[in-house]
């Protein structure tokens, strides 16, 4: 228990130091852009594939259930897929996926830099490594995750349309009607709140795990795994809290 409190304290101190005043804004800007590219563009293909299929599976499974209840019109499917994607599937499943991809990448990159003395090299040059190596990663994640989630929602809805129309569950016009029906901006607000929170959780926990690695290759592997597992657990808990408090 004491270790947990120590770790949380260490994490909070590291986070505070990660947003210190930059030595040279241009260098931090360039590093943030590099991270945006790595986190955002680098994750786009996997997010695109997963989202298409998430939307498709949602459409097929709900259609299967609704067919047996003839009272519910099939045009509702568009609304069901849209709502599921916006409120839950896009932000949460994308976050879990990105915890695996981006989180492990960040933890192993920083861990390797720590073990190979690259972080010491920055320190000796006079660079504040906490703000230079951690700050841009968190800023990039918080900036890029919501964009990825928006793309995920869009592709999920397309996936639902493709699966339903190709599988003859409903017509294209029925689906489009459902997608447009009863759209609430509050749902989109919740989606953005979730994606920003999840981005911060995943990037900050992964940075903490990677930056504080001690030892060698085995410890980098352990830190990388812990980054994924711990950030996934926190994402799930925060997901529940957001739904509980805001919906």
């Amino acid at each position, binding site marked *: 228990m004491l270790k947990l409190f120590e770790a949380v304290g260490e994490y909070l101190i590291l986070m505070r130091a990660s947003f210190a005043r930059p*030595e*040279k804004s241009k*260098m931090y800007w360039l590093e943030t852009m590099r991270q945006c590219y790595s986190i955002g563009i680098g994750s786009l293909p996997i997010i695109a594939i997963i989202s298409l299929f998430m939307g498709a599976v949602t459409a097929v499974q709900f259609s299967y259930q609704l067919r047996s209840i003839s009272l519910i019109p099939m045009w509702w499917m568009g609304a069901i897929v849209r709502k599921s994607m916006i409120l839950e599937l896009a932000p949460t499943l994308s976050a879990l996926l990105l915890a695996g991809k981006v989180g492990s990448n960040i933890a192993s990159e920083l861990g390797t830099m720590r073990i190979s*003395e*690259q972080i010491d*090299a920055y320190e*000796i*040059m*006079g*660079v504040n490594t906490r703000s230079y190596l951690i700050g841009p990663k968190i800023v990039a994640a918080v900036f890029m995750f919501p964009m990825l989630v928006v793309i995920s929602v869009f592709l999920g809805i397309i996936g639902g349309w493709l699966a339903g129309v190709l599988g003859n569950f409903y017509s294209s016009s029925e689906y489009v009607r459902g997608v447009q029906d009863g759209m609430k901006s509050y749902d989109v607000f919740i989606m953005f709140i979730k994606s920003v929170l999840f981005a911060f959780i995943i990037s900050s926990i992964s940075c903490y795990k990677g930056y504080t690695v001690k030892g060698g290759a085995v410890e980098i592997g352990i830190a990388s795994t812990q980054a994924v597992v711990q950030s996934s657990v926190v994402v799930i808990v925060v997901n529940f809290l957001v739904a509980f408090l805001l919906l």
Partner: protein
Amino acid sequence: MIEMINVKKSFGEHQVLKGISAVFEEGKCNLIIGKSGSGKTVTLKCLVGLFEPDEGSILYDNRDITKMDFDEKKKIRQEFGMLFQGTALFDSLTVEENIRFPLDMFTDMSDAEKKERVNFCLQKVNMSGTNKKYPGELSGGMKKRVGIARAIVNNPKYLFCDEPNSGLDPKTALIIDRLIKELTEEYNMTTVINTHDMNSVMSIGDKVIFLHEGIKYWEGTNKEILEITSGELFDFIFASDFLKELRMRAKF
């Protein structure tokens, strides 16, 4: 000049440095030698501020780094250059980007000036033309040279080298030693080298400090070290029976 005054450092119950005092002189190669576990690396890390000593002072031309806050330490570190044992080159950057990083971060030089400075440093270490290569494409000796180029790019007053010859063949090691010596004399830097390579001691050791179990056991020049005939330092220098025998034969 760097002055260490009664520096002590412990990790848990284990005291690694037991009160080290030493002076590292300007324009000279100051070597710290000793067996593995004698406290060389901890001494070097205390010097550059990566470890906080438990007691004692470290003065850089009368500026005590142990009493500096985070920002002051950052500032004085811009006067440091360091060559790491594993070179610590940034994998994701090219040779040129590695070397120009301190210039990008801490100077307002124009791109043309930075390029000129990078090429000058590369030429100093005989690595001209490797600007666009990545560290992964270089041999061990080449990486060390690039590491030296990066260490000197900001005209440091103090140069630190941690085991500069480790993993190199004797001929390349000699080239790296000579390079460090030339640069130290040319730019009048205070150079501190952490090594257990006796070839380095003999070729560039203007001043040699021998650490044994966390204390300064001996201090002198590379000429004086050959006069040693017994004790821990003798065992360190003439580690093998073969070398001891050669030494005894040369004596009589």
